[in-house]
């Protein structure tokens, strides 16, 4: 009987942050937790995936139900007094495989397509391997899940679509400048949306200057974000030295005019200038966009891009789901072939032994007169006939992807030919491969 894969856990959709915090496992605790899980009575293999949005245990056991009960108990023991059970979800067998594949491919994430989850699952995999809690079932499933995630990232644009005004600003800046690190961002005013976009740019390594009508406010923002504060009057002096301008003031007129930008561009010697006007009414004269190497986007442009990105991501999503389906089918196929292998080997060995005994009997009796060459010919003929005879049953066993069907077929074959019960007498457990081997790469 092959082991069954199970997933038990909670995530941002099923549990409040307070509970997720109580059950959180820090990265350096993953190995210890996996080790503890392996010690549960019905858990044979275990791995813990813990992020700020989810805590999940991937496990394998001989009896899925008992394995799930053990894990639910484990969760309950870690958050005494809390109603953990209500927040937990569970998946067994094929549903668990699908869940693992979707999580690794970032299809189950809060922000679909975010790239961190794959690294976090790989980190969990390494911790489980180091804890010795990884077995063949989890190892095979995870290897294939990593391959699926890799395909999803390389064959779709699921990770490239942008979904907020701030990330659109970063995306646009990257398409204009390439690298944002060390680029200088000028924040004019301190509107909420402009601040969010500024933070997103600073995360990419940009440096910050702020001008504000109220110098104290500029100082506060500069202190909070690590930038330089200037009075609003310095705006024109700063323009030649910055690359991105985020404008969001309450002014009722244009703060940045075409003439100001033209003068700045002379001093910039043609270097690109990217302006984002998030204010309503607008703070930057739209004619600025006519100046060479100056690129102006207003809030409508950004929101249009957000809508387009969400639409693009929708198309990529269905493509990503198709890839996951394909990889799951391939995984199930490989798994079926792998688990039918002992019966196939026993069947072939049984026939080969019978044929060999008959050949030797004949060579000692009626075919005694045959020379070496003729004996080899007879041997080859018998082997060829055997291969042809065994082709159909071997193919049928390999093609049975459903576990029940495979076991039924194996039982019939074993009964008909009096073979040892290969499925009930598993080979000694092989240690998990050191790393997933879907493409010969270390998962890190």
């Amino acid at each position, binding site marked *: 009987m092959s082991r069954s894969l199970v997933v038990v856990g909670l995530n941002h959709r099923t549990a409040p942050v307070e509970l997720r915090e109580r059950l959180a496992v820090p990265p350096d605790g993953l190995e210890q937790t996996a080790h503890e899980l392996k010690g549960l009575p019905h858990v044979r293999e275990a791995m813990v995936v813990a992020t700020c949005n989810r805590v999940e245990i991937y496990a394998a056991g001989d009896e899925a139900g008992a394995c799930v009960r053990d894990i639910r108990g484990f969760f309950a023991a870690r958050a005494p007094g809390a109603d953990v059970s209500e927040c937990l979800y569970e998946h067994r067998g094929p549903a668990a495989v699908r869940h693992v594949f979707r999580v690794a491919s970032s299809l189950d994430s809060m922000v679909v397509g975010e790239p961190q989850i794959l690294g976090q699952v790989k980190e969990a995999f390494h911790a489980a391997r180091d804890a010795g809690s990884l077995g063949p079932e989890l190892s095979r499933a995870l290897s294939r899940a990593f391959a699926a995630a890799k395909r999803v990232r390389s064959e779709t644009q699921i990770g490239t679509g942008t979904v907020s005004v701030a990330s659109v600003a970063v995306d646009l800046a990257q*398409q204009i*400048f390439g690298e944002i690190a060390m680029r200088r961002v000028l924040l004019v005013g301190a509107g909420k949306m402009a601040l969010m976009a500024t933070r997103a740019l600073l995360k990419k390594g940009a440096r910050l200057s702020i001008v504000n009508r109220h110098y104290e406010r500029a100082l506060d923002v500069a202190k909070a974000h690590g930038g330089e504060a200037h009075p609003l009057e310095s705006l024109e002096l700063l323009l030649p030295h910055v690359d991105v301008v985020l404008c969001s003031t309450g002014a009722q007129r244009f703060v940045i005019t075409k003439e100001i930008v033209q003068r700045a561009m002379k001093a*910039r010697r*043609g270097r*690109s200038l990217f302006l984002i006007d998030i204010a309503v009414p607008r703070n930057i004269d739209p004619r600025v*966009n006519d100046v060479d190497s100056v690129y102006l986007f207003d809030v409508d442009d950004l929101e249009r891009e957000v809508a387009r990105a969400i639409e693009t991501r929708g198309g990529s999503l269905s493509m990503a789901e198709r890839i996951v389906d394909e990889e799951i089918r391939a995984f199930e196929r490989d798994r079926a072939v792998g688990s039918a292998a002992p019966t196939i080997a026993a069947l072939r060995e049984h026939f080969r032994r019978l044929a060999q005994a008959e050949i030797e009997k004949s060579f000692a009796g009626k075919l005694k007169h045959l020379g070496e060459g003729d004996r080899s010919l007879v041997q080859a003929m018998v082997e060829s006939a055997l291969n042809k005879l065994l082709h159909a049953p071997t193919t049928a066993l390999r093609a049975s992807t459903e576990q029940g069907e495979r076991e039924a077929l194996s039982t019939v074959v074993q009964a008909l030919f009096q073979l040892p019960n290969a499925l009930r007498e598993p080979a000694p457990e092989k240690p998990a491969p050191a790393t997933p081997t879907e493409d010969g790469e270390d998962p890190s």
Partner: protein
Amino acid sequence: MSIAIDILFLAAAVLYVLGGASTLTFLLGARESPGPLGSSALLLGAILHAVHDALRWSVNGVSPWSGIAPALSTLGLFICVLFLLARSVRRTIEVAGAFVAPAVLVALLASRAHARAVPARGPLFSVHISSSLVGLATLTVAAAMAATYLLQERQVKSRRLGGLFHKLPPLDTLDTLTFRFVAIGIPALTLGVVTGHVVGVGLNRARGLPWQQYFAMTTWVIFVGVLLLRLLAGWRGRRAAIGTLVGFASSVMVLLAYVARGVRS
């Protein structure tokens, strides 16, 4: 052996078509990822192209200095190799292959034109051809970058941020590469024009300089102008890209003039 040379020629041409078409289908939206086909086909095409040129030289004695036709084949090879080198450093410029592949293909196909062979004219002539080919190849890659820049700049200026915008490289990357290729190409082109002038004066003492050389000098002036205006007056981006394309168009006129003269005689 000539069959082998023909097969190599055809295979390289097919691979260049495949490389260009693959990048173009990605740009036009048929695929979400460029995949490895485009640059792999160009790389394999360049290898077969190089073997083709080497065999033609060693077996038939046709060197890049034997006439305008073999020189064009070498020019195509140089363009492809330069682009692949640049792409290995900046992967984002892969899509510029859509402009490079047709230029390489045209140069390869034009090398089969029945132009007359040029008699050996000494080392200065070889230096003229070699440096001109290096210069023109570098400036052609610069033109491919400039064309890609203009395409991307159009997307950004018109705020059309669809698939093409995300598939094209960043504007600054393209602008920097255009400048670098022009800066690298100009010394080679200068050497080509100067040695060409000396060789031309020697060959045409009675009739004066051939008019193709005036075209070549115009090309040189345009590219030097693009470079100086950028360095001294901050002509970057759109203006620099347009200047580079004008220079490239002028260099194509020079080549066409030489091809026409070679075919006529």
